[in-house]
C-alpha cells in the first residue's frame, strides 16, 4: 500500500517541529531553512499551514529534468533527487507548479521531500497530528466522515 503525507492546517500550531525533524533527518542539523516541508503562518487569519511535495504521479520536476536526476522510488512512490546526477540547473524548481522543489545553495543541488524512504520524520515529530502518513487512496477519509456525520444530523428524518 502506498502512503501519502496528509496535511491538516486546522490542527497545526506552527511549532516547526516538522521542519527541524526534516532537516535533522536529511541534513543532520536542526535547520528549518533546509527543511523540505514548510509551515506558513497567515497571521491575520490565525492560520498555520504545513506544505510539501505531494509526489505527483506525472511529476513535472521529473519530466523537466534534463539529466534524469529525479527518479521514482518504487517502494514509496516518492520522486527522489539523485545527488550525484543533479547538476543544479534548477529547471525542476521552475517546472514544479507547487514550489516544493528548491535549490540548496550550500550544495549546488536541489532538494525535495523524499518521504524519508517511507518513514517521514515530519509526521513522527508533529505533536498535533497535523501531519500524518496515511493510505494514499484514503487521504479524504476523515473529511468524508466529518461530512457524513454532518449530513446525518442535518436531515435526521430523511
Amino acid at each position: 500500500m502506498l502512503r501519502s503525507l496528509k496535511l491538516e492546517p486546522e490542527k497545526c500550531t506552527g511549532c516547526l517541529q516538522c521542519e527541524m525533524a526534516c532537516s535533522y533527518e536529511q541534513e543532520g542539523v536542526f535547520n528549518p531553512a533546509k527543511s523540505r516541508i514548510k509551515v506558513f503562518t497567515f497571521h491575520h487569519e490565525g492560520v498555520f499551514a504545513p506544505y510539501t511535495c505531494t509526489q505527483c504521479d506525472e511529476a513535472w520536476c521529473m519530466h523537466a529534468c534534463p539529466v534524469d536526476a529525479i527518479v521514482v522510488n518504487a517502494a514509496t512512490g516518492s520522486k527522489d533527487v539523485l545527488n550525484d546526477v543533479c547538476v543544479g540547473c534548477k529547471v525542476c524548481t521552475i517546472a514544479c507548479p507547487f514550489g516544493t522543489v528548491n535549490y540548496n545553495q550550500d550544495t549546488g543541488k536541489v532538494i525535495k521531500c523524499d518521504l524519508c524512504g517511507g518513514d517521514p520524520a515530519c509526521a513522527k515529530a508533529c505533536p498535533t497530528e497535523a501531519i500524518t502518513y496515511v493510505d494514499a487512496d484514503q487521504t479524504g477519509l476523515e473529511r468524508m466522515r466529518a461530512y457524513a456525520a454532518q449530513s446525518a444530523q442535518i436531515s435526521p428524518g430523511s
Partner: protein
Amino acid sequence: MAWTGKILRVDLSSGTCIAEPLNMEWATQYLGQRGLASKYLSEEIDPTVDALSAGNKFIMVTGPLTGTMASTGGRYSVVTKSPLTGTIACSNSGGFIGAEMKNAGWDMIIFEGKADSPVYLYLENEKAELLPADDLWGLSVWATDEALHRKHQDPQLRIACVGRSAEAGCLYAGVINDLHRAAGRSGVGTVMASKNLKAVAVRGTRGVGNIKDPVGFMQATEAAKQVLADNAVTSQGLPTYGTQVLMNVINEVGAMPTRNMREVRFEGASNISGEAMHEPRKSDGKPNLVTNAACFGCTIACGRISTIDKGHFTVKNKPEYWGASGGLEYEAAWALGSDTGVDDLDALTYVNFLCNEDGFDPISFGATVAAAMELFEMGVLTEKDTGGLEMRFGSAEALTRSAELTMTGEGFGKELGLGSKRLCEKYGHPELSMTVKGQEFPAYDPRGIQGMGLAYATSNRGACHLRGYTVSSEVMGIPEKTDPLVTDGKAGLVKAFQDATAAVDSAGLCIFTTFAWTLADIAPQIDAACEGGWTMEKLAEVGERIWNLERDFNLAAGLTGKDDTLPKRLLKDAANTGPAQGRVNELDKMLPEYYELRGWNVEGVPTESTRQRLGL
C-alpha cells in the same frame, strides 16, 4: 556542544560588529541565556551606571537548547540594567527570533555604546551590519516589521524591535519579536531605544548542530515530549485555554488582586477568562479566540490568537485591528481587567493588541492605570492632569484611551509611561504604588498566596511571577500541594523555585514545561546536548549561582535588603473577602529564614562562604 561558541559584539558608538569566541568557562558555570548573559553584564558594566546611558549594555542571548528539537527550545532573553527598577533585568521571550539567531550561528549579541542616529542590525549568518533606521524611527512595531520585510524582500526574516512607546521614553517598554511575542518586562525596550537601536533583523540558514550525543539527545527530547503529551496541564489545559485558564481559579481562591489591589476578588472575572474567550460573541457569533499557537519548537502551544468584534467601540472604522493577532495571556488580562475593574473582553484584547503594536508591558501599564484610577477617585488626580480623561475604575474607555496615549507617549500617556511608582510619588501617595523595587505586580495577591509575597519581595527584577512561581504549588498542587495561607516552609519553597527557574531559563527552555517536567526530565536533555555533566544537582547549583550573581549585581547597584519588601497595603490592610479574609502577607515571618537558607547575612548580603561555595 549545542552552544555555537560564538558571540557578536556590536559597538553602536563606532558602528563595528565583531565576532568573538564564547567564554566556555562561563558557559559551564552559567549554562546559557539568562545566566550567561547576566555573567557577561556583571563583568562588563558598572552596576551603578545610568540604565539609559551609553554605559549600559543590551544583550540578546539564546540558550544551548534554543533552536533544537527540545520542546519549547526557542527561548531567548534580553539582559540589561533596567531603567524601571535599577536592578539587573532579564526579559524572556518565545516566538522565533531566538532560534533564528542560533541558526545564524550566534549564542549572544552584545550591544554597547550608543548610535549617533537610529540604526538596526541586519544579521544574515556570518554577515552582520548596522544599517540606517531613520525611516523606521517613529514607526510602530508592526509597521517596522512590515517595512523591514519589504526592504529586504525576505519573508523569512525574523525581527525584534521597539515601538513608539520605547522611543517616547516609556519606562516599561519591551522588545517585541515576531509581531506579538515580547521580552516584555522591566523596560528592556526602553534601553534598546536609548541606544538608537530600532530593530534586529535575523536570517539564519546554518542550523544548529554540534549536539554532543545526537542519538541520546533525540531519545531524551522525545521522552520529555511524551511527558508533556501525557500531562493534562500541558496537553489539554494550556493549549485549550492558555494561561488564561487561571482567571477563574485565582479568583476562586480569593487571590485575584482587584482595583489596584484593594480587593482580592473580581466580580467580572468570568467575563474575561480563558473560558469566555471560547464563547461566541453576541454581536457576530464568533469567539474571541481564533486558534492556539506555538512558539518555536513548542509542543504545548499555549499562545492565543484572537480577534476583536468589528463593531466594538474600540475598533469601529479601524479595519487595521479587524484581523487576528496575539490575544490575552492571564497576566495581561488581569492587569488590564481585574486591576482596573474593566470586564470588557474586547476592550482588553484591543489594549493587548496596542501593547504589541507599540511594545509596552501590559502588566506594568494596567497596574499603572489602576493606580491612576485610585488617585483619580480620591480626587488627587484630576481631569486637568489627565487631559480630560475620567480615570474611573471599570471604565473601558479610560483604559483604552490611556493605552492609545501611552503607545506614543502623548499627553497623559507620557506620565502613565513612567510607571505607577513615579506616578504615585508625583501625586503624593507613594503608598498606592503596587510595586516592588519599582516594578508592578503580576496577578496573584500575596495575602491569599503567602509564598508569592516572599517571591515578589526577593525577586531580582522587582515584582514578578516568573522568578519563583510558587502559585504552582500553593494553588495548583504542582509538583505538590501546599497551603497558600501558611508561611511555614515557604522560604524553602521559594528558594527551590527561584533556583530551578533560573536553570530552566538558562537552558533556553520555557518555564511552562515545569508544570509537567521536573529537573529530572530536563537534565538528560541538556546533558545529551552539552559537555559538562549536567545532572539535576548541577542544574540546581547553577540556578543558585545565577540567583546570587543577580543579587550581587543589585547590591552593587545600590539596593539593599530593605528593598526586599512589599507595599504597605499588602502588609497592613487585610484581605476583604475569601479564604484570606482578615489576612495580610506575613513577609516578616518568611524573610529571615529565606536569608538564612540562601546563606546571606541578616542584611540580605551573601556571606563569604556562600560566595566561595558558588564560585562567585
